[in-house]
């Protein structure tokens, strides 16, 4: 069976005033239809860039190499007309920060109906009717269709985003920090909603978050990114419970407080900042922060190594094929 999404050796380099900034450096993974994958990592590690790259939403002038096969077509080389047809109908995105992702001067219903009108050539009335149905599906009061985004709460806005993502029945949904700004209760509701909908409709889901626990709960597989690369990739519960890469370990050990921006940037217990993408450390980019760093870490380029057939990690220590000791984990927690 053809994978729904196949990313192969993806490199994304931003062109900024300070020169080239590599955001994604050789990323590969694939996703079967109906499968769910979580992508984790701190801010700036390239997660959102991956989401944008899938629909070619990156700013003009950004250098993208590699291959992104969406349902058998290469997104990076397809004509613009084809690309526009693929957008939203083939894959849709639930963006982070629903407040800013909704057009403040358009009504909710209108915004949900917009892609329907565009892609399915429905009349305004029919599309708006569909929009109302979708709103009901995500648990929004239907009269809200006449509301403007600012009149909704954060959770409601996120539901709007989800309804919008479902509008054209795409095969793939990318949820980019879809629940980050919400409080715990609402977050749980929204997550449950996503899970249910994905399961019901057999949709492929790529969920992006800095919060491993959320991903482990929602997705079957989990990828952890650091400095533009996957550093760990495996079944989510196992990765969450016993990560092989020290960074993934740190992430899973962290219990970020919801809504605290400092927590987002600096997971609990991990020293230092994520590296500057324009000025990455040599060797393993994680080595300056790594609690179990070895002498060769600053000179050896570390690629993903299989820990198990369905589980890889990019750490030199992985070759002894044994889980890190619990003392290491303890030490990490104390740092």
């Amino acid at each position, binding site marked *: 069976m053809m994978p729904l999404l196949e990313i192969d050796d993806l490199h994304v380099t931003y062109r900024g005033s300070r020169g080239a900034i590599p955001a994604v450096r050789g990323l590969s993974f694939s996703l079967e239809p109906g499968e769910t994958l979580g992508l984790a990592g701190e801010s700036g590690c390239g997660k959102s860039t991956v989401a944008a790259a899938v*629909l070619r939403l990156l700013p003009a002038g950004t250098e993208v190499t590699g291959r992104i096969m969406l349902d058998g077509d290469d997104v990076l080389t397809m004509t613009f007309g084809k690309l526009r047809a693929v957008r939203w109908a083939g894959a849709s995105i639930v*963006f982070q*920060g629903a407040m800013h992702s909704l057009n403040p001067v358009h009504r909710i219903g209108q915004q949900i109906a*917009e892609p329907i009108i565009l892609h399915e050539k429905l009349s305004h009335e029919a599309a708006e009717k569909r929009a109302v149905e979708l709103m009901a599906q995500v648990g929004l009061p239907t009269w809200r269709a006449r509301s*403007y985004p600012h009149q909704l709460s954060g*959770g409601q806005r996120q539901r709007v985003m989800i309804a919008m993502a479902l509008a054209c029945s795409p095969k793939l949904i990318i949820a980019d920090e879809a629940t980050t*700004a919400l409080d715990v209760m609402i977050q749980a509701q929204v997550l449950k909603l996503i899970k249910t909908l994905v399961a019901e409709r057999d949709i492929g889901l790529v969920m992006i978050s800095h919060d491993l626990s959320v991903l482990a709960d929602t997705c079957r597989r989990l990828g952890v990114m650091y400095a533009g690369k996957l550093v760990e990739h495996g079944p989510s519960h196992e990765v969450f419970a016993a990560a092989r890469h020290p960074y993934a370990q740190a992430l899973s050990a962290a219990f970020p407080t919801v809504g605290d921006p400092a927590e987002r940037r600096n997971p609990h217990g991990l020293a230092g900042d994520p590296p500057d993408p324009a000025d990455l450390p040599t060797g393993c980019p994680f080595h300056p922060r790594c609690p179990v760093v070895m002498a060769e870490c600053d000179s050896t380029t570390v690629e993903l190594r299989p820990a198990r057939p369905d589980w890889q990690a990019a750490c030199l220590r992985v070759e002894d094929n044994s889980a890190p000791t619990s003392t290491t984990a303890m030490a990490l927690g104390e740092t």
Partner: protein
Amino acid sequence: MAIDPTARVPAAPTGAAGTSGNHDTPPGVGRPGSGSRREFLRFLGVKVSGAAVSLVLVLFSAFFIFRMIGGDPVRAIGGDAPMTPEQRAEIEERLGLNEPMTVQFWEYVRSLFTLDWGTSYVNNQQVTTLMWDRLPNTLLLTGTALVLAAGLGIWIGARAGWRPGSFFEKSQVGISLALWSAPTFWLGMIVIIVFSVQLGLFPVNGMRSGRGVADGFWPQFLDVSHHLVLPALTMAAVIYAQYVLIMRSSILEERGNDYLTVAKAKGLRDDVIRRRHAVPNALLPTVTLIALQFGAIFNGALLTETIFSWPGLGLLFYQAIRVPDIPLLQLLFVFFAGTTILANLFADIIYRFLDPRVRGTS
């Protein structure tokens, strides 16, 4: 003059701020409109009373500024012929020029209520009559110029702001800055030399042909349109430049917003995103800024009408300066300032209705 070409997105009118919090603001529980009526009335009260205070300020400053002008109205009234002392005394008596300042001021205040603004020093007509006679002409000129400038300016500005750094943007900004930097009256002179004197395409000045045209709507309409082209284009050129720059910055401000990325992700065409998503949002602050610069339109009208001898209020003001015709100046000053204040009030209120972010919430 002091139109700031770089003026960027203004603060939204009172009430628009505060909606920018990006965390969970509690939802407006009630449907829009139900709870906000009192809020709106309060807003209206603040705005209207503010405008009223401004208007009163205008009325008083009009009295004092123009009373500072010495001037000898009697000369203006007398004409070219010499005048006897008796005649002079009679005129002074009639104008109340012999009264002490306090009495004159009291008369002035009284006249505000009776709407009797006095008679022109020059031709002894009611100044209000003079104003009403000329008003339609000014409306025609400024209205045409505004429609042209706003339509083209907003369109070009939006396109320019949408592609920062492109040749189109650079050239349009360059053209606009150059237009903005050119004195209106000089532009008018050049336009006259080129299009009227050299090419002979348009009449030099005035609003109607001296030779007279056939009666009937169309001949008259065409005649006036023919006269209107150059002044309207000259006047439009300068305000056009401002609108381009304002709209461009507004769009620039909008460009980074996520909802545009969403629109892109939805598969919308680039120009559709601009037109349907970016422009309506960028238009709101633009409306405010344009309203703030409403006074500048009168500046433009004053200079344009003078150069083209367009028989409007600007020309009337210019003529009144040369005398100086104090009752007329006074009225026109109050009219210009008052209109501007009211236009701003209007814009503030309209904004409430236009911007959904402000409309339903406190």
